[in-house]
């Protein structure tokens, strides 16, 4: 960069920027539209929902500004009943909320774990050379391509206790002796949701991991083969370590998605206590009860919880999101 000054020298040298400064300025100009868009569509709504969470806003007052600042009452509030007993109100002391948090976390951990393992297996298969590979790769993506609302409805019928094909198949093979009410029974509702989510999202995981697999240089495998190393050992020593960055990033994407899951659960098992998640609960508060204060408090907590999880994960996994090391 030492040559910059000389190449950039001109009659008005005192005022013109050197090349480095010009590049920084150009970079900001190219970034500006995106930053402005992010401010409008992400930062502003986030700020609004955090500020609503400190007010008593309802569906009738959010637009006319008649809501009042009530501090942390939506989060926790001490209330004295008419008969003198004390009752704690607010999201932080709400059993339904913590039940939803537990459901969300449980769902996220199990679904992301299953999807990662299955996705890795699918990716390994798709990475192998075989006839019609392009066709199979496209076919695997189909569940991911179907809109969630369609697949949720489809699975809803397939899991139906009276006419569902899943029960029919299991009955025919004598795996069960009477139909299971998959989405209705509180024991199986979460299993049903997990089943559909894994079916739907494994292709996405497979695709991300496959991209990582194709980055691994072929000659590594070649030399391993020449040295006569067992394929399993190659997998543990070569493939997996080199895949690690791709898998870690894929898991972050999925975990972010899973922690805010709404559509599948809202459609497949509406209002079931055993599956209701943070997003569904805050939607109910906002849209159905019109309580924008408490609903926004839930959204804010949801945001904080997701942020916390991701930070923890990045720290524990030492994920390199900046791309500087690679």
């Amino acid at each position, binding site marked *: 960069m030492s040559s910059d000054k000389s190449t950039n020298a001109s009659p008005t040298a005192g005022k013109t920027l050197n090349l480095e400064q010009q590049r920084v300025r150009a970079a900001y100009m190219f970034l500006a539209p995106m930053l402005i868009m992010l401010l409008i569509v992400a930062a502003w709504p986030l700020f609004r929902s955090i500020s609503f969470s400190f007010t008593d806003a309802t569906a*009738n*007052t959010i637009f006319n500004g008649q809501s009042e600042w009530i501090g942390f009452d939506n989060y926790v509030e001490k209330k004295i009943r008419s008969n003198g007993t004390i009752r704690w109100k607010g999201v932080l002391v709400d059993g339904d909320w913590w039940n939803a948090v537990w459901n969300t976390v449980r769902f996220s951990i199990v679904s992301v774990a299953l999807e990662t393992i299955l996705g890795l297996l699918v990716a390994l298969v798709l990475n192998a050379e075989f006839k019609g590979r392009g066709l199979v790769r496209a076919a695997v993506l189909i569940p991911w391509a179907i809109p969630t609302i369609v697949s949720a409805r489809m699975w809803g019928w397939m899991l139906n206790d009276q006419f569902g094909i899943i029960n029919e198949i299991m009955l025919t093979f004598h795996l069960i002796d009477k139909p299971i*009410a998959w989405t209705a029974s*509180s024991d199986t509702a979460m299993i049903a949701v997990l089943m559909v989510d894994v079916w739907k999202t494994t292709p996405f995981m497979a695709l991300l991991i496959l991209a990582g697999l194709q980055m691994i240089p072929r000659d590594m495998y070649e030399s391993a083969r020449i040295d006569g190393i067992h394929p399993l050992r190659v997998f543990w020593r070569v493939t997996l370590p080199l895949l690690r960055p791709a898998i870690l990033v894929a898991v972050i994407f999925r975990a972010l998605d899973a922690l805010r899951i709404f559509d599948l659960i809202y459609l497949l098992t509406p*209002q079931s*206590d055993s599956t209701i998640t943070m997003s569904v609960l805050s939607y109910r508060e906002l849209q159905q009860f019109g309580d924008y204060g408490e609903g926004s408090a839930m959204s804010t907590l949801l945001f904080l919880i997701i942020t916390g999880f991701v930070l923890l994960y990045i720290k524990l996994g030492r994920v390199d999101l900046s791309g500087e090391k690679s």
Partner: protein
Amino acid sequence: MTSFFKATVAATALALGASAVSAAEITYVSGAVGNAVEDFKKIVAPWEAKTGHTVTLVPMPASTTDQFGQYRLWLAAGNGDIDLYQTDVIWAPQLADHFVDLSATAGELMKSHFPSIVESQTVDGKLVALPLFTDAPALYYRKDLLEKHGASVPTTWEELTATAKAVQDAERAAGNNDIWGFVWQGNAYEGLTCDALEWVKSSGGGQIVEPDGSISINNAKAAAALELAATWPGSISPEGVLAYQEEEARGVWQTGNAVFMRNWPYAYGLGNGSDSSVAGKFGVTTLPTGQGHDTSAATLGGWNVAVSKYGDNQEAAIDLAMYLADAEAQKTRSIIASNLPTIVSLYEDADIAREQPIIPQWKDVFLQAVPRPSAPTREKYNEVSTLFFSAVHSVISGNAKAADALAGLEDDLDDLLN
């Protein structure tokens, strides 16, 4: 491609030209179930011809809860695009501020309607919406199966439980393995509030929150009614009933796999359709009573039309609302969609009796209709209903004892309302 493009241009030009010449374009928003969109076109056609206005129907999802959330947002934002809203019977107290008071315009017309329905749409002396049709559920029973096993139509919940069990067991012993005794709506949603309100009210257990605002749900009769219902899933009802809404119950019923069903009138026409395996084999009657109580209860449903304060074509919109609530439109609706009219005299109408013989019969069901507590709980109704159906759902799925659940519910309602 080119011809398609030309056609599009031509159509657009036509539409633009038409709107420039004709008067107002009225926008009407409504949930769309079954043939609602087609039926609506037939019903408004005469009004369009008479006034020269055009009506556009904006179809919404079938779930009333989803509709309500969207409508409330539009109304709170003062949206001028929608002129008329088709509203559920329970919404009037919650949305009253956003609708035009129709009491002066429609006062005379309302005298021909059932007073209880007009009352449900009146909030603080303001007529919020005009009734379009009403809804009240009934007990559907399989005439052929009851006859075959020498059973009579039950009049109490206890009888229903016993009869359903007996017929179900006899049928299964005869090889009919898919048969169930009773199907109803056990999903945790507004429909369960309706079902459970009927069990409780018809057993003398009150109506959750009484018209004067007192919370009455925590009583022994209500608890006993719920305990009885909790014995059904897995014995006379499939366990999946805990996730059933109207359509799932109708699915089991219409394939011939249920002896009894609790459902709304729409299932009558469909059940007698050509693709139904129970066509001509079933009857309907009023819902049973329980614990020696004398009157049965059927949750009052039904739809109304309200005029938005913020619409751009208020005058034409009010005219359309008046037309839709009047006898001509209600009669058409009854005949093509088997909806129950809200005008008393239409129950004696010969044309309706011929086309939809069930409608005159339904008058008895309708006379025992009980409103959901939307009037005393006002804008809190949705939360009250959610607390109620969640408590009921925990009882019928066996996760809680009725007495405990109702005591907890009373506390929650007290915190919410007082």
